[in-house]
């Protein structure tokens, strides 16, 4: 009997391998739909962002398909926030004959896949990979989010213009490309504007649970504003620990801070008075945002963050460009790519994350950052 079991086990494994091999073959998904593919971390530490982007894009595709006319098919592949896996995931999409790419959700993987889409002449629009290295030197790579330099210098400019603080402390994550990217451009701008930065401290993935050293450094230096260019999970801990040590400066975040109010188990009173620059706020009352947020909540029982909104906008921007450029499903990826580049560099797009967005030939988006402050648990415009 024991032997039988093993045979069965081995049989199962080989069957699995076989089915997986068979799955590699090209899929015929019909010629009347435009195939859109993207990669993102659907599993692992960064899965929050990948899942959000995937869900946002799914909602947009459903809405567009319901309209009739152009039909889209969406395929999101897991890249576990790793460049190697991202290229694998992209190759899976290529085997699926992807026509338009949504790039990758996170920065480093997107730099890797952007090189691939550039070489293969497939148009790519990333929802949230914000480094300039993503778009540099590639004419068919576009971004929906702010590029890092824009965020860093916009934050410095904003803090300076509004006189939000006199002594600034910065805490950033030095093994994260997003966080260091913003930090560097913030420092460049701060030096140019003469902002007084009194404390600069770092943390990394292995040490993102205790911030007492960093906060004490900022407190001892007498900082009255702490700049937090990081994602919201770490920021939530910082807010909590600052409160425990009776340190109450102003906190200023960037778009990665968005989502803090929906973090499970987070006491939203801690975020009271936190300022952030973000292109999207789930509490906005315009029709588009309300529609998106309700749909998202119905399906996934949580409030969408900026990644979901960016991906949603991406699909709609592609839809608009396809309509204007008269893209049809039987076109090759190269043909679509040329049309999309022409459309994106000339069109203006209104979405959830901004109105009148335009794209330069370098692929970077121009839209106005919104300064938000958290009051009574909701975002309120700063201006």
């Amino acid at each position: 009997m024991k032997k039988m079991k093993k045979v069965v086990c081995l049989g199962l494994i080989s069957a699995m391998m076989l089915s997986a091999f068979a799955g590699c073959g090209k899929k015929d998904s019909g010629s009347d739909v435009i195939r859109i593919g993207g990669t993102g971390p659907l599993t692992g530490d960064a899965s929050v962002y990948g899942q959000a982007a995937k869900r946002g894009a799914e909602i947009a595709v459903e809405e567009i398909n319901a309209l009739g006319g152009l039909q889209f098919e969406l395929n999101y592949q897991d890249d576990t926030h790793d460049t190697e896996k991202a290229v694998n995931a992209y190759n899976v999409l290529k085997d699926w004959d992807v026509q338009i790419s949504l790039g990758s959700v996170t920065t480093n993987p997107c730099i890797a896949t952007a090189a691939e889409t550039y070489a293969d002449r497939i148009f790519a629009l990333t929802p949230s990979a914000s480094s300039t290295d993503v778009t540099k030197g590639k004419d068919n790579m576009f971004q929906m989010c702010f590029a890092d330099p824009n965020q860093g210098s916009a934050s410095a400019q904003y803090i300076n213009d509004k006189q939000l603080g006199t002594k600034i402390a910065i805490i950033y994550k030095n093994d994260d490309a997003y966080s260091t990217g913003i930090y560097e451009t913030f420092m460049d701008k701060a030096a140019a504007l003469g902002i007084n930065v009194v404390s600069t401290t770092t943390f990394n993935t292995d040490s993102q649970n205790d911030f007492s050293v960093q906060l004490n450094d900022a407190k001892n230096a007498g900082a009255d504003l702490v700049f937090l260019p990081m994602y919201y999970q770490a920021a939530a801990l910082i807010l909590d620990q600052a409160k425990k040590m009776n340190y109450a400066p102003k906190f200023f975040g960037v778009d990665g801070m968005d989502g803090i109010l929906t973090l499970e188990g987070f006491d939203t009173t801690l975020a009271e008075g936190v300022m952030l620059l973000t292109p999207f706020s789930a509490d906005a009352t315009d029709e588009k945002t309300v529609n998106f947020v309700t749909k998202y909540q119905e399906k996934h029982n949580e409030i969408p963050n900026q990644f979901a909104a960016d991906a949603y906008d991406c699909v709609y921007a592609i839809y608009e460009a396809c309509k204007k450029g008269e893209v049809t499903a039987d076109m090759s990826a190269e043909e679509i790519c040329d049309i999309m580049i022409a459309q994106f560099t000339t069109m203006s797009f209104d979405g959830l994350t901004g109105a009148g967005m335009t794209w330069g030939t370098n692929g970077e988006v121009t839209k106005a950052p919104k300064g938000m402050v958290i009051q009574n648990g909701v975002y309120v415009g700063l201006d």
Partner: protein
Amino acid sequence: MKGKKTLNKTSKNNFITMGGLLLVYVIVLILKEGGITTNLINGQLVPICAYMIMAISLNLTVGILGELSLGHAGFMSVGAFGGVFVGTLMQEVSDSKVLCLLVAVIAGGLMAAVAGLLIGVPVLRLRGDYLAIVTLAFGQIIKSIVNILYVGLDSEGLHVSFIEKCEVLDDGKLIISGAMGATGIRKLSTFTFAFIVLVVCLIVIFNLIQSRTGRAIMALRDNRIAAESVGINVTKYKLLVFSISAAMAGMAGTVFAYNYSTVAPTKFDFNTSILVLVFVVLGGLGSIRGSLIAAALLTLLPELLREFSDYRMLVYAIVLILVMLGTNNPKIRDFFAKMFARKKTAKEENANG
């Protein structure tokens, strides 16, 4: 005379491994050129070669020398960033892609060997668990250093800085940019090139194991005190193996980095070290052929399991456990041993008849 002509058992085994590898290479190349393999498989060929080199080089330390190292990805990192750095400099001098890559790989290997030597001197005084822990720490240290390292190149020359980004003129660029790692790498690695590096490493390892040095190393592994008593210099041989192993990991790192347009320091973390160790353990300690097969299969497996979408890594773990149980099961081992034995006797009979 006769004794010279007939190969000993190990040599024969080595030739089988080499021949098999060459055969697989030719088949894959034909399939690839014929457009039969999918993009997914084509994209994995270079990383598989790189991981194979990683696996055999770690097998040298763990299987042949018998010292557990948990920081092997650190050497890969040194090789990757060192190789990219030298390769970028080469780009300024020469237009030849192959030359550029060749110099980069050699430089990556040398840099990793130096790192291996530097780390080896203090570390190899320790044994067993202690050595494992310290190699783990060194792996982390390398990762952290590359994480804050900035190297820029412009018309004024080289700029190197730590923690703060160095200023680079507009005509230059940052070759290594802290946590971002190296970006804008030209994709130079090809399957054939990666395969040649792999074969070179294999030849070195096979010859090393069969040499006088190799026997000394294995004697150290089997009984250190006895080996020392017959005059084998422990430190010398340990350092030798450690730096050769590091050099190969460095070469693998360069080949790997040149297959992607970007490579980040966090890629070469503890998990990668463990992954390579899994290749070695699964393939069998000291078995070079096993390491090669395990590296190839385990690199492909997670991609082939994409059908399972979100449950992919769970299935991967289950498959790993099953394979481990399976290969360690005496009955299954006997089964394979018998099968091979039967084939052999059948062959011999044929030859006689």
